[in-house]
């Protein structure tokens, strides 16, 4: 069970004045159960790339394999693919439309052919996972707060039981508390269900704590691909493309520049504290 992207190119509005070469020769392999952060500046092609992964956008050239099968193959069922690769768009709360929360979350499973009871069961489960209790089920999605709406929308995709969950900037426009809650819940979900998660973001700080692997995109190309610590070592190059490493990286690099023998591959405050303690003890 994996996604393999081979030499994928994508050009918007080919042959017009608006032509944009959004993806240039992308090669990626996403194994099962990984928690991936896909980082890039606005317009770097990250949203376009994730839309390829569930077949919403067709590559101008190149191939994509899901579980070893070519998704552009003649008999490949896109519906099947979309039920397995769930994509939560940016500002997903804008896609809510039903009269109450439960029926909105049921929309996905119902489309996949589930019976009403089955769909409701899945919807309740999904709502529980995003931390929305039963008291919300019968409320109109439009009277919820922004953060709650977003969770309901994420539940709408989760209810389809995807094996791969892609979230495009799930924390955009949320306050720090709402952001941490959503990201914590996604992490929990990833551990609980063992699914693959791709988190699209433009903030290293947000994803550094959670992910196993970071893919950095710039101008439609993959610039860096590796474990967070590895990627953050290139913090100067990251700055050049308009991104920044987490603050901890800067702290550690600063200490090292001043002659401290310290491990700079840390991503969170806790790890940084440990590294500093370790260094102080060895002094």
């Amino acid at each position, binding site marked *: 069970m994996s996604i393999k992207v081979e030499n994928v190119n994508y050009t918007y*509005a080919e*042959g*017009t*004045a608006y032509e944009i070469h959004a993806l240039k020769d992308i090669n990626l392999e996403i194994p099962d159960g990984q928690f991936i952060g896909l980082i890039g500046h606005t317009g770097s092609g990250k949203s376009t790339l994730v*839309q390829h992964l*569930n077949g*919403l956008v067709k590559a101008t050239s190149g191939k994509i394999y899901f579980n070893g099968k070519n998704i552009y193959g003649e008999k490949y069922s896109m*519906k099947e693919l*979309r*039920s397995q690769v*769930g*994509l939560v*768009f940016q500002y*997903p709360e*804008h*896609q*809510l*439309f039903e009269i109450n929360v439960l029926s909105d979350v049921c*929309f*996905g499973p*119902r*489309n*996949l052919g589930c019976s009403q009871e089955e769909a409701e069961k899945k919807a309740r489960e999904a709502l529980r996972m995003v931390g929305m209790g039963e008291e919300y089920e019968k409320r109109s999605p*439009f009277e919820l707060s922004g953060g709650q709406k977003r969770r309901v929308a994420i539940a*709408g*995709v989760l209810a*389809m039981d995807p094996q791969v969950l892609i979230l495009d900037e799930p924390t955009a426009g949320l306050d720090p508390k709402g952001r941490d809650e959503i990201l914590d819940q996604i992490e929990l979900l990833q551990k609980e269900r063992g699914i693959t998660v791709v988190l699209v973001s433009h903030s290293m700080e947000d994803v550094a704590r959670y992910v196993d692997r970071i893919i950095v995109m710039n101008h439609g190309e993959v610039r860096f691909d590796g474990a967070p610590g590895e990627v953050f070592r290139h913090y100067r190059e990251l700055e050049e493309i308009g991104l920044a490493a987490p603050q901890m990286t800067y702290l550690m690099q600063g200490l090292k520049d001043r002659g401290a023998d310290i491990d700079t591959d840390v991503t969170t405050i806790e790890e940084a504290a440990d590294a500093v303690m370790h260094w102080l003890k060895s002094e």
Partner: protein
Amino acid sequence: MIRDITLGQYYPAKSTIHQLDPRVKLVTTVVFIISLFIAKGILGYAIATVFLAMVIRMSKVPFGYMTKGLKAILMILMLTVIFNLFLIDGDIVLWRFGFLRITDKGLRTAVFMAIRLIYLILGSSIMTLTTTPNDLTDGLEKLLGPLKKLHVPVHEIAMMMSIALRFIPILLEETDKIMKAQIARGADFETGNLIQKAKAMVPLLVPLFISAFRRANDLAMAMEARCYHGGDGRTKMKPLHYEHRDRVAYVVVWGYFLVMAVSAWAVSFYGIMML
């Protein structure tokens, strides 16, 4: 898919047509439309074709891009052609099958009607393709200026038009986005009968309406925050004024119209080239 709609979209390029004053382009479009209705016989349409081809050439907008807008009127076009073709009585019957028949007059009217419709769309899309919505409404406001004396809210009309035009691409993009989001949730907009298809539109239309209202609210708020209170006493950062090329364009346009008028008169007076 949805990006194919070109009507009302601006196509950035550097050309003489792009640089013309929007008032010139508005007047030209109106004159061109009128000229299509007074055109008579092959001669009239030939002149219109030459004029249109010249303008398209000068505008540097790819022809293929322009004709995409025609897809939208394909149905109307076909209906017009079919009705005219079969229902107009003429002197010579060219073809007959049961109650259906095609006459010389019917054929001529159908062909000319089709040409007229196509030219109407092409002519007006050149205007919108080469003029930014803001320029267009500026031009309209200035042209309609004299109506202010009759208490016509010219500025407000122009403002509404510019907002409406500005929102076309935004709402198209939004539609595209919501459609994709719902497809990702397994929605199916393509298969099924008419009722199923109409039902499938609900998950698209509800969010779209909500977002349109939200955007309208935000925009109104932003405008009020900048003390917008209508057109009274409002000045422009870049007031419109005619350049040399605009005067030349006016001469060309009115010259074209004169030629059309004379040719139409000549055709109806002498009956030359009447086909």
